[in-house]
């Protein structure tokens, strides 16, 4: 979290900061603040002291006529820095205690008015995403998704549509695809909708991956709405994916599972603290099976959700911490969204997560002109698009790095470590560890290969 720190150093120092002819630096007044990464590009600023205009006025009230004193004895100095998101409360409490010159610590919120929101036009197109993901470089390394099963757990895939939109052949693995009880249809031949968008976006970085079609969101039970399923359908789907994974030869084990869905509301859940709760409990059967599948060798990615504070989806009903359940699972990657300019989209959910605090893990690209599956002029949007974009990158890596060589946990760490950090202190709850960086991944894999040789 970016913060402004108000200090009252010696009058000489305040006078120097206030004097425009004297260059001063943040380290001159605020060096060594524990837990604070100072922004050295931000020159310290002298701030006047408000004082009652009339003798006898209340020295603490701002609701009266005031005069402002820049006298070195009265004025203070403000510097800018950053505190790790998970240390904010303790650092803010301790700073004035550990340093007597610290007067106060204030938030320094971003004053952006142009974050991309739902309904905004596309920012760039899928070829920009290809370029940003360095798809030609990945292909040159042999990282194109060949031999990798990429399961799209969603509303079903229309392969003919994806093929036409991409202008390239698409492989759907009919044998390994699976539908919940009551869902009829042929894998790869479902109506064009959300799942088709996800398939298109996953193939950007992994054009040769083999798609496994898992339309759990088409399940119609309890008279559900147009596109929703039940979490129990996802449990059954994951049990099937476990069989798929176990049947793969160890030397080429590669199953990537992309999940652009979640639970918007606590209404249908037991409350947090109840043993049967899903949103906050690692013991829920779906959270257990996610951990079990990841441990067996699958890479599991979940969208972080569209409940970002700047323009949250109207369906978001959790009062806070909207990255819930498996979308915040420690053995899955939680994917936030950035536009092709690298700026977080305003609807991308922010952490901390409920099962694991450090969620989202990383961000990937969304809100670009892509499949057109949601409508002619509709961008591929939501963290729904960001998640398969990242899953495609993971599938590309798996082309040459099966999970028996590079475990899912190691791959998650690789993505986090190589991400393009968007803050000064590493992890933050907006971008996670940063934006996925294919160049960094390629370099890291080369180093790993050289070490193994």
């Amino acid at each position, binding site marked *: 979290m970016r913060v402004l720190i108000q200090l009252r150093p010696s009058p000489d120092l305040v006078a120097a900061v206030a004097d425009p002819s004297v260059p001063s630096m943040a380290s001159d007044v605020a060096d060594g603040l524990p837990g604070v990464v100072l922004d050295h590009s931000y020159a310290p600023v002298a701030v006047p002291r408000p004082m009652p205009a009339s003798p006898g006025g209340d020295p603490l009230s701002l609701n009266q006529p005031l005069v402002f004193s820049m006298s070195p004895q009265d004025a203070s100095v403000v510097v800018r820095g950053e505190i790790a998101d998970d240390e904010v409360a303790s650092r803010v409490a301790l700073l004035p205690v550990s340093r007597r010159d610290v007067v106060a610590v204030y938030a320094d919120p971003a004053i952006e008015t142009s974050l991309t929101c*739902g*309904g905004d036009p596309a920012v760039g197109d899928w070829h920009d995403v290809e370029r940003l993901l360095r798809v030609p470089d990945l292909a040159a390394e042999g990282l194109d998704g060949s031999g990798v099963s990429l399961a799209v757990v*969603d*509303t079903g895939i229309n392969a003919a549509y994806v093929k036409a939109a991409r202008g390239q052949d698409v492989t759907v693995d009919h044998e390994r695809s699976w539908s919940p*009880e009551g869902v009829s249809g042929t894998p790869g031949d479902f109506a064009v909708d*959300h799942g088709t*968008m996800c398939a298109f976006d996953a193939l950007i970085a992994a054009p040769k991956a083999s798609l496994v079609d898992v339309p*759990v*969101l088409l399940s119609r039970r*309890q008279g*559900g*709405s147009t*596109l*929703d*399923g*039940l*979490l*129990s*359908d*996802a*449990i*059954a789907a994951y*049990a099937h994916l*476990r069989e798929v994974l176990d049947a793969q030869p160890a030397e080429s084990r590669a199953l990537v599972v992309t999940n*652009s*869905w*979640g*639970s*918007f*509301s606590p209404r*249908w*859940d*037991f409350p947090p603290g*109840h*043993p*049967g*709760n*899903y949103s906050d409990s690692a*013991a*829920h*059967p779906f959270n*257990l*099976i996610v951990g*079990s599948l990841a441990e067996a060798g699958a890479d599991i990615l979940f*969208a972080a*959700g*569209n409940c970002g504070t700047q*323009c949250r*989806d*109207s*369906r978001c009903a959790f009062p806070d911490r909207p990255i819930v359940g498996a979308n915040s699972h420690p053995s899955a990657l939680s994917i936030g969204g950035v536009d092709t300019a690298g700026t977080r989209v305003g*609807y991308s959910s922010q952490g901390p997560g409920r099962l694991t605090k450090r969620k989202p893990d990383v961000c990937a690209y969304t809100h670009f002109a892509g499949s057109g599956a*949601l409508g002619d002029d*509709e961008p591929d*949007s*939501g*963290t*729904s*698009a960001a*998640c398969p974009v990242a899953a495609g990158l993971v599938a590309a890596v798996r082309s040459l790095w099966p999970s028996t060589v590079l475990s899912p946990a190691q791959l998650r760490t690789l993505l986090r470590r190589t991400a393009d950090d968007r803050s000064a202190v590493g992890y933050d709850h907006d971008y996670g560890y940063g934006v996925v960086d294919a160049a960094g991944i390629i370099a890291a894999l080369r180093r790993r290969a050289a070490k193994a040789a």
Partner: protein
Amino acid sequence: MAEVLITVRLAAPATLEAAMRRLGLTEDDVDTGYGLVPVDPGRDLYVLRVTEEAGRRVGDSGTGVADGGAADGGPYSDPPIEPYGPPR
């Protein structure tokens, strides 16, 4: 919450009939179309979808006692899930 989930540990070969027998459930209690789904094969852990009433009856939680029912876990929620896009 029309239906809930419960978990049960069963040694192989695990079947829905064996799970129902063990838990004292009838076909009216259980979504037999859903069946018996393995959650963690290494731990012999399976899940069933049952009516809310059956979940309360055989689940081991939510009863206020340490070992309330025959199931090894539950009742657990079975919330609806929806696509995360496009943002509305």
